[in-house]
């Protein structure tokens, strides 16, 4: 009797899952590191300066569909226009708000990323070659630095292109990125000409397919 009750309860649970939409929301994570530079330099961001970042993924969710043993995943963020910095004398924090800005993420089997020196440089193309995984527009981006040059940033992204953007739910607010940002003053090693060392995470809100099973297949699980 208890066995039959258990089976009926289990089937009820499974049926409720089957009845759910065939897509499920999940967050795909990508861990990346790289370097940033701003026209005019940082610290002391001046209104109108443009921030760019080139980075390489060191780990990522398998649902991105890239094997890092075969390809590298590179990131290029650019066009972030500084609104100037605001200094808080109480905390000693400097807040910099940016407008505009785009992100491009590439799947590149040539594995040729090279930061070089004095960006933008000829090596920048090694971050923009390959197949486009994600293209997005920033809806906001903020960078904060403390007086020692250690900071962090965050921004929200509308996905507009690339294979991963197709997983986003409508594209708006498709992705979010945050990370640490460090100047030479904070002890970061920087190639000549770069202003910031960055280490961040890209989060992509994705709708991924769930598996549909026939009722017979479900019953078979419990026989």
């Amino acid at each position: 009797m208890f066995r039959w009750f258990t089976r009926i309860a289990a089937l009820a649970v499974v049926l409720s899952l089957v009845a759910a939409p065939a897509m499920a929301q999940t967050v795909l994570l990508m861990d990346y590191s790289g370097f940033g530079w701003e026209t005019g330099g940082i610290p002391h961001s001046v209104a109108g300066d443009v921030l760019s970042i080139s980075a390489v993924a060191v780990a990522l969710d398998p649902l991105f569909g890239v094997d890092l043993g075969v390809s590298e995943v590179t990131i290029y963020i650019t066009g972030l226009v500084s609104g100037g910095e605001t200094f808080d004398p109480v905390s000693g924090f400097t807040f910099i708000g940016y407008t505009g800005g785009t992100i491009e993420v590439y799947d590149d089997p040539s594995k040729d990323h090279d930061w070089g020196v004095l960006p933008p440089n000829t090596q920048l193309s090694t971050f923009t070659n390959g197949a486009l995984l994600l293209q997005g527009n920033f809806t906001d981006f903020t960078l904060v630095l403390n007086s020692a040059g250690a900071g962090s940033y965050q921004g929200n992204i509308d996905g507009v292109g690339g294979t991963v953007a197709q997983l986003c739910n409508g594209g708006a607010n498709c992705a979010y990125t945050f990370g640490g940002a460090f100047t030479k003053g904070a002890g970061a090693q920087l190639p000549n000409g770069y202003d910031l060392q960055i280490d961040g995470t890209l989060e992509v809100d994705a709708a991924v397919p769930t598996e549909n099973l026939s009722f017979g297949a479900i019953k078979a699980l419990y026989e």
Partner: protein
Amino acid sequence: MLDMKRIAIISLAFCVIAVGPASAQQYFDFNAQVLVPNTVGGNLTLYGVINNNGQVDTPLPLDFANFEYTIVVTNLNLLATGFTQQYAGGTVVIYEDAATPGDYTAPATFSDGVALLSGSLVSLGRTMFTSSMGSVSGSVDWSGGSRIDEIAPADRLGWSFLSGISTRSTVTQPGYDENWDGKTEPQVPIVPTDESSWGEVKSQY
């Protein structure tokens, strides 16, 4: 008989042999979960995975295809609060392990295996800019571990320990306070020493 000039040249050669071409970027990149103390005197604890995965050079050659590399910080003592919390005295260890993947519900899975490098977090500042976002800046001195001899004594000191902080639930595991996504890196790239026989050195001259 070697004259003084030759001896001087050979001495210089020995110095040169210890250095060679090095990658411009070299660091241990980690992604970690952190427990933060509530009061001064408490200890901060970090469990994380080293995840360069062959994409960025590590200061020591690592075999990511066959091993997992983890980083653990313990007993990092909170000295002072403020906009930037000050810590010191912690122990940091990098482990190599092929047996048990790191599992944040079982912290011991991060501290098993072979301790490749061990040292102390001489100082660390933790700053929260908002309730969900911050950063960390600290300094590591390495002093032990099975591969410490691969780093020249002068290069073991003053490694940067830099990380972003997030408290978002998307990246912070249940039971932990924060996600730290960062790196520890030497002041200069670490290069392997190249052992040469006396004859090989002489033959270069």
